Structures are given as C-alpha cells and as structure tokens.
C-alpha cells in the first residue's frame, strides 16, 4: 500500500485534506504527520496551509520542517496547496516581505485594491469561490476538463521568475498563475479538497503520479 504524508505544522485544518485524499484513493494510506522521519518515509507528500505566511514560515523554521520540505521536494511526488504553494516561492509581501522556501524562485504579491470586472463591478478580496482553471499539459490534469472550476480563497498570488513552471492560470481579472509544476513538485493555489469531483480527480491523479512529467 502506498502512503501519503500530510505535513502537520499547526497551520489550519488538515482534516478536510486528509478526508478528501482518503476518499479520492481508498487504497492509499493517508497520514497527518509532524514527525520528520515519517514524512521522509512516505511515498508522497502533501503540504497544505491556510492563514498568514509569517506564522507559516515561523512554524516551519522552528519545527525544522523547512529542511524536511527542501529534501522531499527534490525526491518525491510533492503537492503544495494554497499557503503550501505560496511558501514554495522566494518571498511574500504579506507581513512585510517574509522570506520563504525558495524552491520555486519568484514572489508572492497581493491583489491590488480597486480591481474591477469587465462590467465595472468591484472585485472583492479575498478572491473567493469557484473560478476557471486553464491548464497546460501535465499528468495531474488527467481526466479533468479544460477550464473546469475549482474553489479558491486567497488574497495573494504567486509570480514565478520562470514562466515555464506555470501549469495553469486563472483570471481575476488578469491571468495569474494558479498552478506551478517543476519536476516532482506540483502546487496549486485553489483547494482541490473543496472542489468536488474535479478536485478529487486531481488528488487521485497525484496519488497515482510517479513524479515524472
């Protein structure tokens, strides 16, 4: 039986993601773990997170999990979700430019105030709800229709230095990178665990992915 470790570093609700992984692939052993050894032993790693980036990075640095993430992000199929995606970039302007893991070089910035849609309606921040995801070929999109809607809730978004790592974009109102892919690392700004059938399909794809593109 293959195993997936959901990294527990005290940021947010891991039950949703664990339940969704279990539902997406009943044949996989899903563990919520804080112990570096167990994370290093797992076949695949999910790095979730909600909340503020400064608290997230503090928790990772104090627990020593930063080094563990650096290691597994080089070796195993690795899925970052929401704040777990943002933490992979170089830095984040939230909380006065917080230094992050720099696994995917680039920056995380806030949506500007005063954004409007094409009809002149004010766009709210956070970007919350179901928005369309336009993706480029990657095994994690298997059996997912192009431009499917996934559930988002965030106020910051990633701008990678190398646009070749962009695996999907979403418009709010301009296109931003909502998924990044580099070797065995895949990261999404939306919440697959809350995106009903297409979200479960993406999790299922991840749980059967060998980390190759």
């Amino acid at each position: 039986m293959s195993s997936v470790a959901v990294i527990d570093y005290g940021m947010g609700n891991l039950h949703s993601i664990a339940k969704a992984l279990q539902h997406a692939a009943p044949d996989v052993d899903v563990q919520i773990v804080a112990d570096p050894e167990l994370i290093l032993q797992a076949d695949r790693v999910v790095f979730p997170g909600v909340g503020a980036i400064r608290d997230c990075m503090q928790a990772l640095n104090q627990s020593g999990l930063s080094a563990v993430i650096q290691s597994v992000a080089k070796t195993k199929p690795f899925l970052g979700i929401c704040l777990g995606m943002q933490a992979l970039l170089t830095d984040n302007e939230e909380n006065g430019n917080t230094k992050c893991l720099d696994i995917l070089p680039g920056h995380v910035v806030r949506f500007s105030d005063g954004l409007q849609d094409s009809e002149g309606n004010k766009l709210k921040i956070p970007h919350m709800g179901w928005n369309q995801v336009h993706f480029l070929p990657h095994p994690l999109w298997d059996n997912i229709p192009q431009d499917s809607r996934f559930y988002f809730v965030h106020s910051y978004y990633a701008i990678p230095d190398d646009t070749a790592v962009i695996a999907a974009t979403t418009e709010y109102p301009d296109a931003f990178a909502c998924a990044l892919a580099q070797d065995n690392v895949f990261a999404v700004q939306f919440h697959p665990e809350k995106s009903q059938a297409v979200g479960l399909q993406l999790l299922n794809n991840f749980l059967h992915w060998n980390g190759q593109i």
Partner: protein
Amino acid sequence: MSLAKRIIPCLDVADGRVVKGVKFVDIRDAGDPVEVARRYDREGADEITFLDITATHDNRDTIVHVVEQVASEVFIPLTVGGGIRTLDDIRRMLNAGADKVGINSAAVFNPEFVREAAERFGSQCIVVAIDAKKVSQPGEVDRWEIFTHGGRKPTGIEAIGWAQKMVTYGAGEILLTSMDRDGTREGFDLPLTRAISEAVTVPVIASGGVGNLDHLADGVIKGKADAVLAASIFHFAEYTIQQAKEHMAARGIEMRL
C-alpha cells in the same frame, strides 16, 4: 472566464434535524441534515451552511457529529454558524471538518472576539453574520441597524458602518440577513444588500426572503451580492439547486454549471 457567483443552501439544524419555520415559529421538519447535504452536493451547491438553532447547550454535540459525517463525503466548503462564542467553539467546528464559522451575536457583544478568531484561524474561515433591520421611516434616508435574538432585540448599531468595522477586525466574508424579509418569501432587501456590498472589500452573501428564482438573480444583479443563501425554497423540493443555477445563468450571471 470569471469568478462564478455562488448559491449556498442553508440548513437550520435543531437537535440533529433540519427544520424551517417562519421567524422561528411554525417549525417544519425538513429531514436528516446529512441526507439533505448529500442531495444539495449532488445538485451542484457551491457551498453548504449549517445554522445550529438548538436551544439547549447539551445538544450542541449533535451539530459536531453532523459536520463530521458530511465532511467525510461532501467535498465543497462547509460553514457552521449558531452559538459560536469562543475560540474553542471554532476549533471544534474546524476539527469536525467545517471550513468556515459564522459569528453572529458574539461579534456584537464582543467585537474583539472577531479579531482574535481571525488572528488565530485566518480571515478565510471567519464569516461575520449580520442581522439587519430597517429603522428609517418612509421618506427618510435609508438606515438599517443590527438586531440580535432572531431580530427581536435592537442594538442601535448602524449596519453599514458595522460591516466595515467587522472587515477591519478580520472578517473574511459577510453573511447579511434582512430581518424584515427573513421568512417572508418577498425577496432580499436589495437596497440593504447593495449598500453593504458596495461598502466592504470582502464578499457578501445575501440572505433572508427568497421565495422564487428571480429573487436569487436579483440579489446578484441588483443587490451586487457575491453569493446568495436560501433555505426553504430548496428544502421542500420546490426548486433544485441545478434549476436555480440555470435560471441565474439565463439571466446573464456567471455560474458553475
């Protein structure tokens, strides 16, 4: 391509059953909450909200079990409101599988609680529920105030300023209920919805008064709501969520179909 407006069915839960009454009287049983949530998920609900209206503290555990069960098989955002007064109440609901909690009277009695909750759990899971009622007379400039206890107790707090204050305290979303319209089936209070939605930066969910599908569309088009919440029109199978979404889409609203 753009963000879809959301339809959120609301389940009023008392002692483990879905109930719906007009202004908390004439309560009708509408079924088992887990069954009802499953049906709404199948029909395409964008989120589901549970409002715990259990009268006694002893029966509060039932809502936790309901959320646990729903969260293990329904993979869309779940919000729980009703009786959320402490950080521990929030932790219990999130651990049970809720994604957001609705804070209502506790915010009125102690606004700092909203700040503490947002700092501890993140704004994304803090929905501040506002029950507002019109207090201006015909011919006067519109004024709405916050009421507690199911719309019975006035607080004297002006609603638009209150909504803005709650956002600065960390609310990630506002659930706005018109106590004049709740249970009447006459449609949302559109001027109230629009006034609040235009005054705050975060999404606003319109609630209170839905009697037909045009009311839902009006909430978005005229009320500028980001999401619409309704209970009774869905519980008794007058309309399915799918019908509601198709109707709204036909009126030009971006929906997840």
